[in-house]
């Protein structure tokens, strides 16, 4: 059951020779093929992955592995630049675009011997909360095909079948979340601007970490909102997320928004005593539309901490309900600016319409961008007009400051970590989700995750339990700036308490039953 092992476990297995990098890589590639219906991957880099695996194998043979990531198959969201491998952002604008350079985080992974399996699917240019609005089609939540979901789902009519019943992954890093959830890789990179790593993590039952802004380099991450974007980490357990964090964090001279201080990778402590912890429960996160199920789960989690001796207090983040509107203004403004470079001149799609520069630009952008992207560009440009700038953009910046200050006050009052839901409900069926437009959905779904991006704080989704429909529900922890160690320690403790079940997927069972059956099978222990 190598595929279902944790990163730490498989790393040990590689070191001990119980499995080789090429075997591991081949299994992952085979599983990717069998789970193609999930549409989690846009590009599978089979040749280069196998080559990387071979090189890793050589190093293991010589007894000189590069570290705990050597030989580990990983996937990367398709808005990170990967040299020689197509980077599309799930958009017609960049279909066929082969970047000449690696994003810093990608380079770091490769430098440590990780095996890059491929680029994962997303909402176009990371705009969306369903991973349904990319040009390569929607991503399907692996849990749609799980035993747990199938047992609980009652077809509404006889003609309804598995095909139309599948649920979304959430977004925009849905492909990465699905890849990790379906065991085709041991970790994946996502991005998080308003919740795009934590949201799909919650829906797909995996750990999704949003690091503090400025901790991990954004060089090579195609930006959505430069002042809020961070690379996100998706893994199957908190411990694995800590390993990834350790190999990615740190100052990058190529990214002037990364902090200068030296980052010291930490060993994640195994908390046994939480009595010295203070957990804050922000009352405003009891948001309209929050399902009773999740409300109950949230309450149960708070009790868990209380019963273990932690101090659990209700706190207030009074400006929470302004964050969606504020985010909308700031996000669209930056989008309008960031998308201005896509003109078809230097790279990417170029329209055949060439009567004049202007017409070429206009046609290229109309053809290359989907409605969601174009809508945000138009909104953003409106807010940036001279006559509107003070009213909207500057005002939103001021409100952003208030939102960030809410957190500062709460943390200053002695609270160590905040506990909130991640999503309003479990994953919606695709057919239901697409009844509302992208903007409406984003506004609804981002509400619990997006303030952390405003304030630049670290936050993590930990899978907590299965819903009545047999789908994952996660809870979110928000920590102090640059205090990932404490945040992850608390998350790890919680993970241990809840013992979230392993997804029962037929395809995985088939690929993972093997010679190594006598090995201990993985579980969240």
């Amino acid at each position: 059951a190598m595929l279902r092992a944790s990163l730490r476990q498989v790393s040990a297995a590689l070191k001990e020779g119980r499995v080789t990098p090429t075997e591991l890589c081949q299994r992952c590639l085979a599983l990717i093929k069998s789970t193609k219906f999930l549409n989690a991957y846009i590009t599978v880099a089979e040749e280069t992955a196998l080559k990387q695996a071979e090189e890793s194998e050589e190093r293991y043979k010589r007894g000189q592995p590069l570290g705990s990531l050597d030989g580990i198959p990983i996937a990367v969201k398709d808005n990170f630049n990967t040299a020689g491998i197509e980077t599309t952002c799930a958009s017609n604008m960049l279909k066929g675009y082969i970047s000449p350079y690696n994003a810093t985080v990608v380079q770091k992974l490769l430098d440590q011997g990780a095996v890059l399996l491929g680029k994962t699917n997303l909402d176009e240019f990371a705009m969306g909360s369903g991973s349904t609005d990319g040009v390569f089609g929607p991503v399907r939540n692996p849990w749609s095909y799980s035993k747990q979901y199938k047992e609980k789902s009652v077809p509404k009519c006889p003609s309804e079948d598995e095909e139309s019943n599948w649920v979304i992954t959430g977004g925009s890093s849905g492909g990465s979340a699905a890849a990790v959830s379906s065991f085709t890789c041991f970790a994946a990179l996502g991005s998080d601007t308003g919740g795009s790593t934590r949201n799909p993590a919650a829906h797909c039952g995996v750990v999704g970490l949003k690091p503090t802004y400025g901790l991990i380099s954004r060089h090579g991450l195609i930006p959505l909102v430069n002042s809020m974007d961070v690379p996100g980490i998706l893994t199957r357990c908190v411990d694995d997320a800590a390993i990834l964090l350790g190999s990615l964090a740190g100052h990058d001279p190529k990214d002037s928004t990364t902090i200068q201080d030296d980052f010291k990778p930490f060993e994640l402590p195994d908390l046994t005593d939480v009595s010295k912890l203070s957990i804050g429960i922000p009352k405003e996160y009891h948001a309209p539309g929050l399902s009773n199920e999740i409300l109950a789960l949230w309450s149960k989690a708070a009790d868990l901490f209380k019963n273990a001796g932690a101090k659990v207090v209700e706190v207030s983040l009074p400006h929470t309900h302004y964050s969606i509107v504020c985010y909308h203004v700031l996000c669209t403004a930056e989008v309008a600016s960031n998308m201005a470079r896509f003109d078809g001149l230097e790279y990417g799609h170029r329209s055949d319409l060439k009567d004049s520069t202007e017409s070429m630009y206009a046609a290229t952008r109309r053809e290359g961008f989907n409605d969601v992207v174009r809508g945000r560009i138009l909104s953003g440009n409106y807010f940036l007009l001279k006559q509107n700038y003070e009213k909207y953009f500057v005002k939103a910046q001021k409100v952003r400051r208030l939102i960030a200050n809410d957190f500062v006050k709460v943390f200053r009052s002695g609270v160590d970590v905040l506990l909130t839901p991640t999503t309003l409900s479990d994953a919606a069926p695709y057919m239901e989700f697409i009844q509302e437009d992208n903007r409406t959905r984003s506004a609804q779904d981002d509400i619990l995750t997006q303030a952390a991006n405003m304030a630049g704080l670290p936050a993590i989704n930990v899978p907590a339990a299965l819903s009545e429909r047999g789908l994952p529900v996660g809870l979110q922890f928000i920590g102090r700036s640059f205090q990932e160690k404490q945040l992850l320690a608390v998350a790890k403790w919680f993970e241990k308490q809840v013992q979230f079940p392993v997804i029962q997927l037929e395809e995985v069972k088939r690929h993972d039953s093997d010679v190594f059956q006598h090995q201990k099978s993985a579980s969240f222990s």
Partner: protein
Amino acid sequence: LAPWVPVVGLEIHAQISSNSKLFSGSQVQFAAPPNSLVSFFDASLPGTLPVLNRRCVEAAVMTGLALNCSINKKSLFDRKHYFYADLPAGYQITQQRVPIAVNGSLSYNLCIDNKMSQMVTKTVRIKQIQLEQDSGKSLHDDTRSQTLVDLNRAGVGLMEVVMEPDMCCGEEAAAAVRELQLILQTLGSSQAVMAEGQLRVDANVSVHHPGEPYGVRTEVKNINSIRFLAKAIDYEIQRQIEELENGGTILNETRAFDSKLGCTVPMRDKEGKQDYRFMPEPNLPPLILYDAKSLPANMNHQQVINIDWIHERLPDLPSVKREKLVEQYGILPEHSFTLLNEDGLAEFFESVVKRTQMKPKKVIGWILKDLLSYLKQHSLTVKESPVSSFLLADLLNLLEKKEISSTAAKQVLAELWKGEGKTPLEIVKEQKLELLQDQKELEQICQAVIDGQENE
């Protein structure tokens, strides 16, 4: 008719003299093969980020200090959006909200009635200096209906120097720009050669009656030399006056100077007012500069810029150099202007003075009248002079020692000018230009001439 008061302000873009561009590591070089100096960031490849070039900041601080500005210890970067083929990102990174330097002044000198002996000093206020990116170049090929884009220049660092409308005519503007050029070249912050596009000047021109509010102003662009700057401004002032006197109005427009026709014409591609949708540049933190007082104790000095440190190391500015030349060599103030006005001439002069016994007050005549006129006639720079300072010094020594007459000296200079490698002494001997001191020899020659005359 009521008198008109012309008002002239200037926006000057000076290319920063640095090895690499303002926000990326690609090289800065004039006339390189197209698109050979373009980094991923310059080409606006998605995911690339700007990284500020320290040298460019130092150049701006130096320039700000030399122009008596207050240096803002905290300045900000902004994005200015517009679509154009030579702007790959669709925006330029500039400093719109808080630039690096503000509230300075520049003193310059004018001759009254073209008499160099009557100079007057004027001042123009410097509103601000801001750091910003240069754009690439686009060439329109109408015959093939295509536009060729060269991004070599895209991202090169610029200092935009804004001069308040304190000037009144082309001559003043030209003199102010000339002085700025000399300052920049002295500092080394920009080579400021207009012909190579390292110094670009746009003029804002308006006219009004005394006591009335300022008139509508036009912006004049596409000026390629200081001489054309004066011409363009004076033409535009005249045009506006004539227009208004004929009952017309002045449009707030951008006009291009046509050097062939000597007039300004409306520019076609600038229609209407653009909304640049300024937005803070989110990828660059505020630029923080320090001085001796505010410098934190344990700061890595590679990471910071100390304004006082730069101030202490500023070279002598042209005005100071001129004073020193006048004081040291006893030359006239207007001489010092000419010396500094020609690149390398002051150094040439000092080199000659060092090597000759002739008094500097006399040497200056040879430099400014003889040498300089030769150079001008043949359109040569001082560096290209076939007569080196050593040669001229040798020649002047012969004159000073009375071994030749001054007429002979001019003849030798003409010969030296051919650049055939002969020394002054060799030429004197060849052409028998020595002054004869020997009484007896002189008598013999005179006798020979008289004898010759008698035979005719």
